[in-house]
């Protein structure tokens, strides 16, 4: 089995923005068909070298070995004096094999993404993740037909290379306000919900295994509990892939997504706990207590590590005003280091990454240039997109490759128990949570939260890491895990969109925030803080206000360079709005009458006419002169360096703020 190392310099996919233009260009059916044919041919031609290269018969060398091979002919050439003809053209594949394979896989993934968007009907019915798994199955099948061994999703590769970009993307663009408003609910679902799932599934599975008639009697309790803990965690990659396409309202999105992120700590602890003691065969009360303490250490430690690295990154960005080009690098490297450092101590790497991204973002964004900001945004989206595609394709390939041990009883019982556990867990927890929430969760909300509990590649990788000697039933577990993943991704992923429409669940509000809303919500925040102080109650608003004050007084001064440390939030928001309006003005060819005075200051206020009518009205407007337009463009160009974008909504496929 070949070990692939992720090669980060392969920019082989076009950004998603180019797609609509390209698709529009290929209007005729014949052109589209031709492109598809090209893609298929390329696919076929790439599969064969991959298959040939991945086979275990070829000597598996790493790069060092390749070098050795390279040195040898030179060495032998010195001692051996028989003259050969000078090789004009020679084939030496072995020393570029690994980067070549990686690039091919990444190229394959990206071409698949391109291909899907050319078939619009398909992408609206079937979510992308399903299509990618199917492609993976096909590729795996092709490789097997050729006679080679398809590569399996290596857990090292997955956890160290494929998962971090997706999590960093999620953490950096995490919508903080809805997250902190619902953090109690999210934690309940993540911690208590996952524990419930794990024990319910594990326990009942063990009970079923003990029934006479099935030949599963040698599956012991701890192995079942371990299996339960692996299969119970909701997967962030799968949730992201499916939920991004259905544009559900903010609350539900953050609930399911937040749960999938925060349950990592629970999964890590349970997994290690059961794996440790499965060999011994029994767990004592002391071990359980240690497990609880371990959970706190893992979760809080992960967050602490992430915060430290986030603060470091923010501090570093304060001094980058002279070397703007490497600003994005600091963001990526510090975050990756946070993840790796957390993994060193077996803390929760996912929580470290989320904490790092969320902590550093407001300060880094105030410090870096506009272009660096765009670079970070595009790179994160690109990497996470490619990672996600690769993960799903590899899942498909691994399904074809992996040794399977199918047992009807075990697998069907697992699937049913997962569903039942999820539904019961969500309903039960919501009943308790609603007692503490101001805005209650309705039955519709509960249904979507339960239905959105998708499992994915993390479960598969954790299962793959199990030791074959210690767990003789590993293949059975893997088969069951894959079946559950397929079931959730295909069945639940495909049906969630029509169900959302059927149940008329509230969708994401597309309209942007107006300045009125911004001012009034700040006002109301102050009002509620005041009321809470009068009541003598230190509630939500009080602590938020205290945190804001602390932030303004101490933290911003440390971490933000220069004058921007004092800029109030409202001003930044206002500038952004003005900028948008000015850009729209220029793009529409100019139509609003400008004041006759030439704008001499650089501030945007002078461009905006004092008494213009509301923009909703259409009227015949005079064109502005060329000179006026040039002035506007100059002012825009200089101002674009100063304003900052604040991302409000987070969407994978469109990079619109």
């Amino acid at each position: 089995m070949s070990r692939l190392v992720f090669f980060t310099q392969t920019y082989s996919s076009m950004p998603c923005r180019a797609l609509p233009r390209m698709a529009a260009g290929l209007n005729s059916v014949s052109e589209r068909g031709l492109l598809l044919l090209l893609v298929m041919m390329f696919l076929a031609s790439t599969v064969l070298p991959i298959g040939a290269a991945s086979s275990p018969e070829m000597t598996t060398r790493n790069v060092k070995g390749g070098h050795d091979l390279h040195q040898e002919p030179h060495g032998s050439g010195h001692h051996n004096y028989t003259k050969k003809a000078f090789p004009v053209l020679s084939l030496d594949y072995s020393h570029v094999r690994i980067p070549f394979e990686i690039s091919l896989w990444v190229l394959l993934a990206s071409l698949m993404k391109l291909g899907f968007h050319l078939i619009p009907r398909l992408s609206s019915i079937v979510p992308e993740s399903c299509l990618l798994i199917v492609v993976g199955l096909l590729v795996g099948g092709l490789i097997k037909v050729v006679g080679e061994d398809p590569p399996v999703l290596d857990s090292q590769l997955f956890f160290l290379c494929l998962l971090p970009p997706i999590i960093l993307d999620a953490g950096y663009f995490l919508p903080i306000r809805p997250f902190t408003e619902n953090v109690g609910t999210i934690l309940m679902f993540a911690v208590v919900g996952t524990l419930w799932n794990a024990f319910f599934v594990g326990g009942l599975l063990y009970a079923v295994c003990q029934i006479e008639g099935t030949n599963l009697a040698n599956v012991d309790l701890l192995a079942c509990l371990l299996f339960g803990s692996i299969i119970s965690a909701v997967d962030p990659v799968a949730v992201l892939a499916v939920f991004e396409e259905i544009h559900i309202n903010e609350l539900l999105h953050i609930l399911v997504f937040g749960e999938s992120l925060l349950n990592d700590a629970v999964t890590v602890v349970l997994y290690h706990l059961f794996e440790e003691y499965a060999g011994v065969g029994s767990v004592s009360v002391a071990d359980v207590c240690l497990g609880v303490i371990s959970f706190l250490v893992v979760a809080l430690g992960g967050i602490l590590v992430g915060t430290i690295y986030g603060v470091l990154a923010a501090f570093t960005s304060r001094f980058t005003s002279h070397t703007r080009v490497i600003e994005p690098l600091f963001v990526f490297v510090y975050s990756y280091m946070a993840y790796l450092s957390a993994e060193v101590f077996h803390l929760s790497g996912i929580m470290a990454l989320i904490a790092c991204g969320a902590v550093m973002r407001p300060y880094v964004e105030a410090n870096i240039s506009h272009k660096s900001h765009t670079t970070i945004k595009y790179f994160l989206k690109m990497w996470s997109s490619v990672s996600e595609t690769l993960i799903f394709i590899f899942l498909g390939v691994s399904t074809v490759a992996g040794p399977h041990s199918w047992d009807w009883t075990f697998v069907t019982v697992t699937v049913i128990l997962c569903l039942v556990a999820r539904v019961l867990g969500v309903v039960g927890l919501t009943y308790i949570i609603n007692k503490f929430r101001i805005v209650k969760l309705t039955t519709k909300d509960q249904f979507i939260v339960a239905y959105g509990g998708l499992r994915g590649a993390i479960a598969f990788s954790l299962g793959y890491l199990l030791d074959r000697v210690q767990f003789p039933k590993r293949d059975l577990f893997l088969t069951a895990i894959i079946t559950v993943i397929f079931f959730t991704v295909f069945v639940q992923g495909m049906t969630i969109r029509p169900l959302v429409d059927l149940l008329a669940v509230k969708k994401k509000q597309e309209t942007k925030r107006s300045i009125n809303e911004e001012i009034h919500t700040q006002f109301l925040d102050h009002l509620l803080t005041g009321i809470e102080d009068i009541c003598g109650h230190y509630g939500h608003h009080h602590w938020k206000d205290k945190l804001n004050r602390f932030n303004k007084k101490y933290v911003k001064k440390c971490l933000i360079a220069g004058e921007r440390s004092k800029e109030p939030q409202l001003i930044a928001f206002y500038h952004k709005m003005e900028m948008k309006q000015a850009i729209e003005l220029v793009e529409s060819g100019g139509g609003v009458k400008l004041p006759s005075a030439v704008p001499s200051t650089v501030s945007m206020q002078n461009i905006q006419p004092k008494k213009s009518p509301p923009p909703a009205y259409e009227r015949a407007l005079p064109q502005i002169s060329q000179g006026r337009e040039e002035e506007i463009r100059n002012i825009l160009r200089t101002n674009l360096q100063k304003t900052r974008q604040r991302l409000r909504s987070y969407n994978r496929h469109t990079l619109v703020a």
Partner: protein
Amino acid sequence: MGSNYSTLSKIPNVDDLMQETGFTPAHIVRLYDRFNALDKDKKGHLSPQDFESIKELAMNPIGDRIIGAFFTPGQEVVDFHSFVRILAHFRPVDKNRPRDPNTPEPVNSRTSKLRFAFQLYDQDKDGKISRAELLQVLRSMMEMQVTEEQLESIADRTIQEADLDGDSTISFDEFRKSLEKVNIDHKMSSRFLR
């Protein structure tokens, strides 16, 4: 529970108060204790100085407006009933309230909450938020970190966005419309007063 009942009996007209505001006896007792804690001279009513002694309120940019909202014009003191009535605005909304057009709007409905907030903006009580009033609010919230020019353009932009009838002021209906996407039930409710 025994101490609760004895405290309740000290408050005159407590049943009417509970009926009007929807607070439970436990809440009334808590608020009564708080009222007494604030009333340092044990006068039986609160004056502006008692509110000002709450130090977090002094740091609040709109603290003086909030204090002003408790005192009806002309009155120098706040008795317990008015105290509770104002705080009742911030009770979470009862979703299951039957929509009876005959009974008056309860004090903690969405409209009443918005009206309370509106009155904090509208200091001269003419039913409209003028440009000058908006400027005052912005000035106090920005805490003197911006130029007058920037404040004026923000104020102009705000009025331009919200003003639908073109009178360069924001009426209560325009105010309500500009906040229709905000979840007022959540934003203007305190869990403490459930």
